């Protein structure tokens, strides 16, 4: 019992920073599941990743102006993310460049520019913080930001749910009934960027997508409907946050990678043993039915 207490509860009871980090992770998990599911359904997983990296130069400019201040870096990151999404969309629409290629180009540019800008003023430690996150330094302000993001995300996704689903699986129908699907696409992208900004403090720009995407990918091996997929992300994302924080605390490892690795663990387990399209079903298919 004492061991369970020491390992599981003591870190949070004894340290305020651990409590705040845990709450931030849970709030992040609550909001980002639906966004992650739609990133997958829109086949935008890699684009989402590119988008997350693109937050860097904005956050770096915020860092240049305001130091390691979360509001400044978040605002910068949000503007940079939206600008990248819009620009890539525009470039793809008006030239023959495919959208994935234009996203890749934008993200490489952004990553390089971001590292350069941080290096102008900051130390390597600052750079590491921005790239890989520092969830143990979450303060009340960041908590408020993450919680607000989660609320906006859930309300926003609920509001645009129907047109977004149709835009995903049958955009022609949306066009035929006279609805501009791109509007909802961009609203969704804005919510995605918002979640990445919120995740950026915890996990850094390089892994901001970890809690968004990995639980959603894992959920796709368990559920066959959008809603159940989104619900299935919740426990996995929350557990990733909790276990990742504990591992990081007890073994002195960086928290961002620890959280993302636990999420990866859920992904691998789901891939192997999920109820839908998993490796297990491939190698040991259940007996077929008569009709």
């Amino acid at each position, binding site marked *: 019992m004492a061991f369970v207490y020491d390992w599981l509860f003591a870190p949070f009871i004894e340290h305020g920073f651990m409590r705040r980090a845990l709450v931030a992770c849970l709030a992040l998990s609550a909001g980002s599941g639906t966004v992650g599911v739609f990133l997958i359904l829109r086949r935008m997983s890699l684009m989402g990743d590119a988008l997350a990296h693109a937050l860097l130069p904005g956050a770096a400019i915020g860092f240049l102006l305001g130091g390691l201040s979360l509001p400044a870096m978040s605002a910068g990151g949000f503007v940079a993310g939206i600008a990248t999404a819009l620009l890539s969309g525009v470039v793809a629409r008006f030239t023959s460049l495919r959208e994935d290629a234009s996203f890749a180009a934008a993200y490489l540019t952004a990553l390089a520019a971001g590292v350069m800008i941080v290096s102008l003023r900051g130390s390597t430690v600052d750079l590491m913080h921005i790239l890989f996150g520092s969830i143990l330094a979450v303060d009340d302000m960041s908590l408020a930001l993450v919680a607000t993001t989660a609320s906006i995300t859930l309300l926003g996704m609920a*509001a645009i749910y129907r047109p977004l689903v*149709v835009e*995903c*699986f*049958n955009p022609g129908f949306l066009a035929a009934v006279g609805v501009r699907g791109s509007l*909802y696409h961009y609203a969704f992208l804005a919510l995605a960027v918002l979640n990445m900004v919120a995740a950026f403090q915890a996990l850094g720009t390089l892994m901001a997508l970890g809690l968004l995407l990995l639980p959603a990918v894992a959920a796709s091996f368990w559920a066959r409907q*959008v809603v159940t997929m989104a619900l299935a992300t919740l426990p996995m994302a929350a557990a990733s946050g909790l276990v990742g924080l504990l591992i990081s605390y007890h073994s002195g490892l960086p928290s961002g990678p620890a959280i993302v690795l636990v999420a990866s663990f859920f992904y691998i387990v789901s891939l192997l043993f999920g109820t839908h399209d998993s490796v297990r079903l491939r190698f040991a298919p259940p007996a077929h039915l008569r009709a």
Partner: protein
Amino acid sequence: MSAALRLVDVTVTYDRHPAVHHVSVEIPDGACTAVVGPNGAGKSTLLKAMVGLVREVRGRIEFPHRDRSKIAYLPQQSDVDRSFPISVLDMVMLGGWHAMGAFGAARATDLDGALHAIEAVGLRGFERRPLSTLSSGQFQRALFARMLLQDAEIILLDEPFNAIDARTTADLLALVRRWREDKRTVVCVLHDLEQVRANFPHSVLLARELIAAGPTEQTLTAANLLRARAMAESWDETADVCHPGEAA
């Protein structure tokens, strides 16, 4: 007979090359009209122009008596991502879009309507099945169910029976006949001339330009069909700019 839809000198271009060239035709109100012509004749483009899905349109498309928002359109190659995790019922429910819109709640009557439509196309018992488990024929039935629910006054079908077996085709043609009895306007792109003669009293014969239009037996004559077949399918990079009045 009054027109549900009137095309006046409509030209639709892709990259400046006309896919539909100076076509003026009236689609009779409350009747079934078939659009016939060789591949590349601009049949699909014509339908897309009627729904407003192509941009490069010259000329006018008028709806004298009908509400333009009450058009249902079934594309030839549906862009439906059939691997998307959505149930048959949810997909059919989208037919109630004009009532629900993007944000409105679905009412009990919409649900009833969807269940009836699913039954009418012979998919009872499939309501909860994911779209990905349907065969092509079942999927086409589901799309027809969604159109039934749309309750449209003008229904545009682009080769709806392609790669569909005889029994499904017969069932779906029965729905088209029901629309005709309801005095809805149906415009349907078809290749099977027997199907056209049996089910569609009116026809439009298209070969980029209008060859003939009117009652089917007067339109689909051997001479007209021959003229349509002779249509150049070429995409002439050196073609001159077309000036108004020059075309036939």
